[in-house]
C-alpha cells in the first residue's frame, strides 16, 4: 500500500508515524506543506504535532496551506485519510470533519496512556479490532476536548460515526476515564462516508513492544485489510 504523510512546519509526530507505516511495508512518502500535488496514495496521514506552533488556533493555519486543498479533494473523492491529534484538529479546521476541539477540561496539557473502547469495527480503520475491545493508547494534547451540537451528535451516533470512546482499563465509559472532558467520552469520529477518521490518541505510539505496546498496530493492519 502507498501512504503519504503531510508535513507542516511544527509537525512532530511525522517521523513516528512514518516509522510505523514503513515497518508494515507501506510505501510511504513525506509531503511538504508547500507542495501543490499529492502523490497517488491509498492512505493520507495528517500527523500530530504543533503545526505553525498552534498559533492562532490549533490546526487553523495548517488548514489554509497549499497541500490541504489537495487533501480536501482526495477526501471528497473517497480517499482514506487519518488525522491524529493535531491532524484531527486540522481536519476539523478545514471542514473535512465537523465539531470542535476545545481546550482540555482542567486547562492543562495532558500526556499519558489511556484506554479506548472500540464502538464499531465495521469500517476500514478498526476491522482488526473486536467490537468493545479495550485498547491502550497514548494521548498528548492541550485541545482534545471534543464538542459538537446536538444535531451533529445525533448524526454521529445514529450512523456509527463514533468508532472510539475513552474508557477505563475494564472498559467502563465513565467521567473518571474521560481525560479531557470530551462530549460523551468521544476520542475519535468519522465523516459520513467513514473514509476520513480524526482521533486524539496516537496509535503510532503503541506500535512497538519494546517501548510501549503494540496495541495500536491493528489500526494500520485494518487499513491493509
Amino acid at each position, binding site marked *: 500500500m502507498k501512504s503519504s504523510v503531510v508535513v507542516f512546519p511544527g509537525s*512532530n509526530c511525522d517521523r*513516528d508515524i512514518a516509522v510505523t507505516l514503513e515497518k508494515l511495508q507501506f510505501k510511504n512518502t513525506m509531503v511538504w506543506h508547500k507542495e501543490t500535488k499529492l502523490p497517488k496514495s491509498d492512505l493520507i496521514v495528517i500527523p*500530530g504535532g504543533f503545526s505553525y*506552533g498552534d498559533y492562532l488556533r490549533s490546526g487553523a493555519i495548517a488548514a489554509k496551506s497549499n497541500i490541504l486543498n489537495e487533501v480536501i479533494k482526495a477526501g471528497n473523492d473517497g480517499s482514506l485519510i487519518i488525522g491524529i491529534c493535531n491532524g484531527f484538529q486540522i481536519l476539523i479546521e478545514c471542514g473535512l470533519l465537523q465539531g470542535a476541539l476545545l481546550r482540555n477540561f482542567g486547562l*492543562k*496539557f495532558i500526556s499519558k496512556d489511556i484506554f479506548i473502547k472500540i464502538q464499531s469495527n465495521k469500517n476500514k480503520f478498526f476491522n482488526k479490532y473486536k467490537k468493545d475491545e479495550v485498547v491502550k493508547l497514548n494521548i*498528548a494534547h492541550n485541545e482534545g476536548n471534543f464538542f459538537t451540537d446536538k444535531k451533529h451528535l445525533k448524526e454521529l451516533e445514529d450512523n456509527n460515526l463514533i468508532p472510539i470512546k475513552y474508557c477505563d482499563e475494564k472498559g467502563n465509559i465513565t467521567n473518571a476515564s474521560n481525560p479531557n472532558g470530551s462530549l460523551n467520552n468521544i476520542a475519535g469520529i468519522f465523516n459520513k462516508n467513514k473514509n476520513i477518521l480524526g482521533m486524539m490518541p496516537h496509535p503510532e505510539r503503541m506500535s512497538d513492544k519494546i517501548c510501549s505496546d503494540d496495541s495500536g498496530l491493528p489500526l494500520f493492519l485494518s487499513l491493509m485489510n
Partner: protein
Amino acid sequence: MKITKEQIQSHGLKLDEYKKIKNFLGREANLLELGIFSAMWNEHCSYKSSKIHLKKLPTKNKIVIQGPGENAGVIDIGDDDAIIFKIESHNHPSFIEPYQGAATGVGGILRDVFTMGARPIALMNSIHFGSPDNKKTQNLLNGVVSGIGGYGNSVGIPTVGGETKFNSTYNENILVNAMAIGHAKKNKIFYSKAKGINKPVVYVGSKTGRDGIHGATMASAEFDENSEEKKPTVQVGDPFTEKLLLEACLELMKKNSIISIQDMGAAGLTSSSIEMASKGKLGIELDLDKVPCREKNMTPYEMMLSESQERMLIILDDKKENEAKKIFDKWDLDFVVIGKTTDTNKLVLNFNNKKVADIPITALADEAPQYDRKWKKFKVKKNDFKIKELKKIKTDKALFKILSSPDHSNKSWITDQFDQVVMCDTIQKSGGDAAVVRVHKKEKAISISVDSSANYCVADPRTGGKQIICENWRNLISVGSKPLAVTNCLNFGNPEKPEVMGEFVECIEGMKEACEFLDYPVVSGNVSFYNETNSKSIFPTPVIGGVGIFDNLNRIIDMKTKKTGNIIIVVGKTFGHLTRSSFLKEIYSINDGPPPEINLTNEKNNGLSVLNLIKNNLVLSCHDVSSGGILVALAEMSIASMLGLKITKPKKFSDFNEYFFAEDQGRYLLEIEKNNLEKIEKMLKKDNTFYEVVAEVQNDIFEIDKTLSIKTEELYKCNNQWFNKFNAVN
C-alpha cells in the same frame, strides 16, 4: 564621553575591572564596548570565580570525545554513535516569570545540543521550589511546569524525567535546571571554533528584539525586593521557531558547508561571535545594519546584548552560501550574512558606516578576570544523635507521612503535563530510578538520571558532593545500564562570601573524588552563583545529570516487583544513619547533624556486583535505596506493581525505625527468584559484597510481622494525593 562610575556599576562591573578594560583598549570605552565587556566578564559567561576549581574535575577518559568548553559534552557510545548532553540553569528568569523563564531554559539547552550536530532525543529537569506554605510556591510550580512542557512538547522532544523538591531555602530563589540529550554520528560533530579568513558569518533564526537585554548580567547578581521589576530582561520563547531552526540546522549539517556554529545563548550576538573568534584565534567584523531586527530603531547596544531566543551564528564555507540559504528559505527562517572572519584578532562592529566598537578578542575571552576567591573550610557537625531520645512513632505512621510528603509524593501531576513518548523511543518514562531512551533504530539504549541532595550538601559539602555523584551512578545501575559520564549544574549563593565559596570548593572536591574513583567524568556543565535574596543564600545545590548505556535492549529492568513468591534482597550494609534523613525531617522536623558517609570502595563494589547480577539475568526488578531508606524504597516497588511484600524484621536493631528509615549509602533492593538465591549468594561472596534478605513478594498486603499491615492500594493512595490537593487549593 567618559564612562561614569554609575555606568560601570550598573553593568555589574567593579571599578578595578574597568581599569583593566581601559588598559586593554588604551583608551576609555564607549557605552557599547562597556556593555560587551560586562556581558563577557560577568560570572555567568566568564566563570571567573569557579574556573580554577572546575579544573580539578576529571573530564577525560576513553569514551569522552569532547569535555567542558564547548556547547555541550560528547561521549562515544560505540559503533558510529555519539551522545551529546548538557544541563543548564535558568533560575533567576524563572523566579521572575516562571512560564517564560522555564520555557527558554529548555530552549537554550536544546540549542546547545543541536548546535553540535545532535538530534535531541530527550529532556530532563531538576526543579526546586520554596516551601509549599510560601504563597509564591503554587504559582511558580504551575508556571515552571507548564513552561517546561509548553516548550518541549511543542518542539517534539520527550521530557522523560527529572526531580522536583521543596524547601524554604528556595522561597525567594527557585531552581530550574534543564538537561538535553542528543544523538549524533561520531564523525559529524560540529564545534564553535572558527577557521579561515574572510569567511561569511551568517545569522540564522529568529529576529533580534529588545528582550533579555543584559540577562546574563542579571543572572550574576543577587536578588532583592525590586527583582520583579526586572521582568523585561526575561526572554520570551518561541518553540515553533526552535523546531524550524532545529530541522533547518540538521538539514544543513548533512552538507559539508559549516565551518563552525554557535547558538546565541546568554549575551546573544556578543558571546557567540567572540567565542567563535576566540577559539579560532581570529578576528570578526560585523555589520550591524544587517542584523534582522524585530523592532524599529534598535541601537548597536541593544542588538549586541539582546537575548532574543532561537538564533544561531554560523561560519560558512564561502562557496556554500546559496545552498545553505535555500534550506533556511524552505523553513521560512532569516538567513543573513552579517559579517566575516578577519585576521585582526579584534571584534570590530560597524553601524551606519561608522566603526562603533573595536576590542581585542583576547581581552574579552582569555583575559577575562579570574579570581581565586577566599573560601572558608566547612565545619561538619559531629553525629551525637540518639534515636532513643525521640518520642516513639509507629513505623506505619512514619511511612505514610514520608510517602505523602511533597518530596516523596508521586509526581505524575507534573509529568502528565510533559509529552514523555513523542519520538517513540522512550522505553522507561519518569517515575523509575532512571529514564531509558532507545537510540533510534538501533539495538541499544541510554539511561539518564538527574539528581541533587542539597540537604546533605548543606550539612557537609564535601560528603554531599561525593554522595550526589554516587547516587546518580547508582540510579543508572538500578535500571541495568553502565554509567558513562555526567554533566553538572552547580547552584550556589554569592561566591564573594567565603562561606559560600567554601561550600562550592568542597562540593567540587567531593565530586572530583567520587568521579575519579568511579571513572565517571564530567563532560559539560554550568555554574549558577548568586542564588540568594537579601543576602540569604540557598543551600548549596549541585545537580548531576548522568548518562549510561545498555548494549542490549533485553537487559533493561525497572523497579516494579514481578511475581509473588520472589524474594527481595538488599545489597549493601545498613548501619542506621538517620541524621539528615527524610524520617527526621518529615516526622520530627529535625534537620541537623552530618549526612551519611560515602565509602567509595563499597559504593563501586556494590554497584558493579549488582550490574553483574543484572547482566546475568538474575534480577527481576531493582530499586536503589535513597531518601527515605529501605522501607520507603520497598513501598515504592510495591506501589509500582501493586503487589504486596512480606518484610522481615531486622535482627540487629532494637528500634525498627532506625533500620527501615536509615539513609546509609551504596544500597540496592533486588527482586530475585528464590531458587537463584544460592547462585547469587556465591557471586556476591566472591565479590565480597554484603547482602541480606529483606522481603518476599506476595498478593496485595504490604506488611512487617505484627508491626504493620497495609493494602497496597492504601500505599498508592497515600503516595498520589499531595499534588492534587495542593493545586486544588487556590
